[in-house]
């Protein structure tokens, strides 16, 4: 008897699932009056008509999902956006050219040469590169803390693991600086303490490549080294200090903002949109005299900014319905133009000329080459 109970509870769940699977169409607004057989038929149709599948960067994810939503509303096409990170996205994207592979990958940096080659090797040829806008990387602190205005050189000297003894003598020493004033007397007299993105993050890569490397380049003897031995220079410029002055925060930038509010002496490194949303709690530090603002990032006056991209398989246009239309929606004025809905959520738009060029690439399906 009791065995029967267990068995019947199990059978109940099985049949409930079957019901959920078969009649699920009823929860869909489009087909509220469908009979079960119709629902099964429409499910068959659903598997035939492919969704647009997007993978890639978590930085581009908010913009990509916004376009997916607006595009879906306007046209009824279904877009599935996965947040896998830039590297993971390129891997999935270049995995093959079949219909089950991703149509688009979002990226917070350009596709690497190795990734492009992987694509070609796996038969993915004709990739269209679409630049969508810019993202500033800000160095912020609590709203009531001392304002910061640092040069790229200060950033390098504050966070590198090894720094040259002086501007002209490139003998390396472990980073001796503990106070901002040791580096630059104009900076506030505070201990160096920074919270930044972990090594897995694309924001970290961009910070290291743009801010740290940019700072290292301004030191004359390192500039010479860069010409002679690029690899050695890269090592010196890209390695962050490990003595506790730079602290890897989590991937969650909201938590980072909270940390800055609680620790006024600390500074934090994260994407511009989090500064934009929290201007009542934190303020962005000036870099090379430029404030991290929409206008400055867009014009390139603010030095620490990067371009955001998505990549599209030319071969999938026509096979994945709505794919080109999605890319056109993304590059439309309403979406990524000045005053568009993507600007509202923190994307720094391209200039009109740049956007026109990118849009033409999408219209003509012009593949790019490395």
């Amino acid at each position, binding site marked *: *008897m*009791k*065995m029967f*109970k*267990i068995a019947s509870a*199990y059978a109940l*769940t*099985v049949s*409930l*699932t079957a019901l*959920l*699977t*078969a009649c*699920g*169409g009823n*929860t*869909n607004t489009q087909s509220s009056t469908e009979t079960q057989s119709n*629902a099964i038929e429409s*499910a068959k149709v*659903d*598997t035939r008509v492919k*969704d647009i599948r997007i993978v890639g960067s*978590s930085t581009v*994810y*908010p913009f990509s*999902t*916004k376009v*997916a*939503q*607006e595009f*879906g*509303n*306007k*046209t*009824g096409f*279904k*877009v*599935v*956006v*996965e*947040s*896998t990170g830039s590297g993971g996205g390129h891997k999935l994207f270049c995995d093959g050219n079949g219909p*089950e592979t991703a149509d688009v990958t979002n990226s917070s940096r350009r596709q690497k040469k190795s990734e492009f080659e992987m694509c070609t090797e796996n038969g993915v040829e004709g990739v269209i590169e679409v630049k969508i806008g810019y993202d500033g990387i800000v160095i912020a602190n609590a*709203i009531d803390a001392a304002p910061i205005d640092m040069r790229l050189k200060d950033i390098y000297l504050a966070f590198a693991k090894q720094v040259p003894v002086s501007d002209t003598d490139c003998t390396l020493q472990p980073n001796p600086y503990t106070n901002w004033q040791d580096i630059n007397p104009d900076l506030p007299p505070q201990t160096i303490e920074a919270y930044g993105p972990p090594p897995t993050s694309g924001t970290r890569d961009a910070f290291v490549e743009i801010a740290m490397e940019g700072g290292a380049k301004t030191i004359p003897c390192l500039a010479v080294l860069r010409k002679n031995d690029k690899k050695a220079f890269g090592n010196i410029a890209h390695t962050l200090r490990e003595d506790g002055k730079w602290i890897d925060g989590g*991937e*969650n*930038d*909201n938590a980072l903002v909270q940390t800055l509010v609680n620790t006024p002496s600390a500074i934090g490194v994260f994407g511009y*949109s*989090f500064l934009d*949303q*929290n*201007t*009542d709690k934190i303020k962005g530090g000036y870099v090379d005299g430029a404030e991290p603002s929409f206008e400055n990032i867009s014009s390139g006056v603010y030095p620490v900014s990067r371009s955001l991209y998505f990549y599209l398989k030319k071969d999938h246009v026509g096979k994945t319905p709505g794919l080109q239309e999605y890319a056109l929606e993304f590059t439309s004025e*309403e979406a990524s133009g000045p*005053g568009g*809905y993507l600007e*509202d*959520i*923190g994307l720094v738009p391209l200039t009109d000329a740049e956007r026109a060029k990118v849009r033409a690439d999408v219209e003509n399906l012009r593949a790019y080459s490395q």
Partner: protein
Amino acid sequence: MSQIENPETKSKKKKNRKSGKKPHKMTSLHNSEAALLRLKKRRAKEGRFILWGRLAIGFAVASLMWLLFSLVGTGYTAFTQHFITLDVKLEASILDPTDIRDPEKLRAANYRRLIQTSMQAQIEGVTDRKEKRALFNLVSASGATNYVRQKVYKNPNLVGQTLTVTVPTSDEVDQLLKGYIDRETPEARRKVSNQQIEWIDELVDRGVIKPKFNTIFFTGTDSRDPELAGIASAVVGSLMLLSVAFILAFPIGVGAAIYLDEFAPKNKWTDLIEININNLAAVPSIVFGLLGLAVFLNFFGMPRSAPLVGGMVLALRAFPTITIATRAALRSVSPSITNGALSVGASHVQAVFHHKLPLAAPGILTGTIIGMAQVLGETAPLLMIGMVAFVTEIPTSVMEPASALPVQIFLWSDSAERAWSERTSAAIIILLLVLITMNGFAIWLRNKLEKRR
């Protein structure tokens, strides 16, 4: 604790050994000063143990309360939302200049301008372009345009008429009225300008903006806009995952346990299998995701983001838990039950299935529910098989792309807009409620089965 007590217990053991040498002096053993001292010490120790126990419970309860209070404290406001009522004139000249009433064309038309016009009808004297934009930002741009859009798409005859709609305000207005945006903050640092606040207060006074129960949160699917985001698609996705995982893991887990405990020969092979099952329970869950990616997606070519694959991966996660719990439950049944059955002529299979298993059922079910609760909270393995995704439709079959509730919580918590924090907390409250319901059901089932024992 144990470090402090160890020397004491050692010394006590020594004393016991000493006194144990003369067992016949019973009276002095209990009444002597040394004995009384020992007794006092023992009682103090017991008292201390109870105190520690109480402190442990107190600590556990306090942390749970703290978690619940902070969650409910930030989350409860997400259950209401501010809505704005607008008269939208569906002008044919904007929506359908060619007058064909083609639904597809109507769907792609520019609804932004209609909403802008109806907002300007609410507040007089807004002419400046910048002001118009600020005024339009009070309403949920995506929510309002899409609401009208879908109405017109379904019923093209509406064009030319005036529609009265109640749509969500923008998340910033909602946050301001809920007090999450401080009016005292200097204007430059605030997301809402002084003029906007003036407008909002006027609209609230006139009853155009009103708080309402947030049905969107329960019936809506995931959205990029916090004011439109809901948990329905994620909840359905999670239910599908749970069902698939249960259907696979329960029979396999229970079956494996019964066979291993009752019928399998005891040799080094079954020992090895047992060790492996126990190890499997401790494997980090991301490993199951990698396995799912390699086997189900790459080898069998199953679709990405499908709850079927997710459920299969999570079944692997739940199966060892269920097996271990089932074996413990079977062992706790008194051998006299089986022996009794065997002695009156039942076969081994009959003895196990008719007598032993029903008595073990409460334990098995508890183990299963714990396994399922683990599955409900998993996100890591889902990343590998593509379920950390933005899905705007409620999945209708286990082969369609879906997300899951914990995944959605994770994605929401990492979004920049302030309004996400209350929604994240609210979604966690829902997840906890589902867990409590599941555990409650397990307890109810267990009590019911135990009564009939």
